[in-house]
């Protein structure tokens, strides 16, 4: 931690979020961070309704990316099936909210979706980590779980595949997923398109700050130690199996929340969220942005999905070629990802005055 982070006007406020496990522990970083959030918050005002509609989806993706960066970058667990929790969250919300078509349903749906995806992640994590499944086998197992869900949900087209009024719909997907809302019966707050954007942005910022505090706590040190050398950490008396289990479960809960935000924005979810292409996207964002940088992952998710969207809009077929090449290029040339590399460059260049490396990247990419 550099000297100038221990004083300054808001030092006390910043302290829980700063530490050796995150980049950007300076006042100028936080200034950039606040500016970036302000720019994101201003987007619907500047560009209107449509920007909010599209932007909310990107922000939900960024939240999914953060959930992977947290477990992969900080605890060394590469889950190729992070979308499993994302999809389960989305489907669970749909099933509950369609069956209870009032604001009670939306509220219950949100709680149920997070509970279901958390429990599913906990069950899978318990099954794997307490069963001695390691390293690359965890990666493959999680991918297979996502593919099982893909195959299974794909064959639920028949009328018998319905939970109450909610028809799963096979590859046609589940349509008519209600908007997000909070309340009981018909009294409460219905969250429209612009409101949904701000809810998603708040969820992302809150998750980012929460995870920053977590990875810089004692538990966070134990997580990183587990990533670096599991057997040595265990010898020091830490229960690494439990640490991995807990981290995986938290990651699953966040992914579940992002799935709800995604499904409520589109009012629709289909099995393609479990497919191989979808499964690999969080890995792409975290690899390109830098898996040990939560903000780098957010920046990469927003930038890549924005470019992907623009290319799709212009009818170009080259989106996947560009994303794939970018992935190969980044992993070969800067294995740590863009954000840590930028940070190193900035620190080397201006070692007297460290500036936040990852904040401007996030700002530039979304403001153009």
């Amino acid at each position, binding site marked *: 931690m550099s000297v100038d982070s221990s004083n300054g006007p808001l030092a006390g406020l910043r302290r829980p979020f700063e530490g050796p496990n995150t980049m950007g522990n300076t006042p100028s970083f936080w200034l950039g961070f606040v500016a970036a959030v302000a720019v994101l918050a201003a987007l619907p005002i500047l560009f209107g309704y449509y920007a909010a509609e599209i932007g909310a989806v990107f922000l939900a993706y960024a939240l999914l990316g953060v959930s992977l960066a947290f477990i992969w970058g900080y605890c060394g667990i590469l889950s190729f099936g992070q979308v499993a929790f994302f999809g389960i969250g989305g489907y669970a919300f749909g099933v509950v909210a369609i069956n209870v078509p009032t604001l009670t349903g939306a509220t219950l749906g949100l709680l149920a979706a997070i509970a279901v995806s958390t429990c599913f992640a906990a069950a899978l994590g318990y099954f*794997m980590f307490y069963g001695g499944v390691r390293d690359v086998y965890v990666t493959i*197992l999680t991918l297979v779980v996502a593919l*099982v869900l893909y*195959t299974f949900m794909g064959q639920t087209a028949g009328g018998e595949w319905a939970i109450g009024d909610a028809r799963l719909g096979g590859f046609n997907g589940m349509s008519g997923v209600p908007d997000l809302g909070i309340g009981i019966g018909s009294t409460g707050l219905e969250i429209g398109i612009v409101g949904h954007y701000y809810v998603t942005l708040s969820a992302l910022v809150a998750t980012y700050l929460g995870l920053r505090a977590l990875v810089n706590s004692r538990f966070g040190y134990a997580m990183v130690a587990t990533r670096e050398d599991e057997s040595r950490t265990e010898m020091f008396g830490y229960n690494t199996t439990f640490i991995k289990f807990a981290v995986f479960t938290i990651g699953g809960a966040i992914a579940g929340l992002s799935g709800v935000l995604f499904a409520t924005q589109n009012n629709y979810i289909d099995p393609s969220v479990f497919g191989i292409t979808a499964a690999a996207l969080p*890995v792409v964002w975290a690899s390109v942005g830098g898996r040990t940088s939560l903000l780098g992952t957010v920046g990469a998710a927003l930038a890549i999905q924005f470019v992907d969207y623009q290319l799709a809009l212009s009818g170009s077929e080259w989106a*996947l*070629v560009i994303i794939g090449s970018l992935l190969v290029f980044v*992993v070969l040339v800067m294995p740590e990802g863009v954000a840590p590399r930028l940070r190193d460059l900035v620190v080397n260049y201006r070692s007297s005055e460290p500036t936040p490396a990852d904040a401007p990247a996030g700002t530039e990419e979304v403001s153009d």
Partner: protein
Amino acid sequence: MATPELLNLGFEFVEIFAFIVLATVGLAVIFGMMGIINLAHGEFILVGAYATSFAVAAGLPLAVAMAVGVVVTAAFGLVLERLIIRRLYGRLLDSMVVTWGISLVMIQLTRIAFGNTAPGVGIPFGQLPVVDGPTYYLVLAVIAVGVLGGLYALFTWTDFGVRARATMQDEETARSMGVDTDRMYMATFAIGSGLAGLAGALYAPVMTVTPEYGTSFLVESFVAVVVGGSSVLLGTILASGFLGTINAAFTNLAGTFMGQVAMLVAAIVAIRLMPDGITGLLSDLREKWGESE
């Protein structure tokens, strides 16, 4: 169970077993021997299928066209190894991420270059008299067994096989004994790619060749490699047998979808119970018996 039903079940098993073996061996050679997780394996298969389809469309006899498919894929693998893969030895997870990127690029480039389908190839040899299915599936099973036998011979009996295995087991020592380890990696990767190309060539007549053709192989091959464990040949045989049995049984009871779901669930349970695969479990057992003697 009546005899025709039993025959059908047996035929189904042979069909799935051959499919898993052929889809898996290329991946198993590359993963088991070189420690590269090739998520672009399906797209290597795609290269083989496209090369075969276009060779047939150009008027070559089917067998020659298939040979073209194998050679083109092996050459393709060789180039990719030189350009990208050789930087990834010893970086297991990175190899997975990079090859996935390669797979994305290849699928989309295929779509851009050739459109959504390749020229069709007819199924040779006609129908079987007793069970409901083409004779070609039995030919595939024979070829699958032949490939396994050929690989066994290559890696145990030839000079090349011994050098290749020495390289994978202990690169430093192999190099100090005068083995050109760089060339061994290159050759092994090319063999793995060629085997992927063979799968693509052989299945070009029975499956519609589209840019997503490779993904229909990827899951089975992946799961089989992991369930099989690090011993390439024995692992492939045992895992294909195990997964093929479950798939055939559940397909018969509840349809194709449930067959696939059951196979994947069985694979999850198998990885949980045997983190080092079937062959890992076998070598553990062998050690235990060795101790008790």
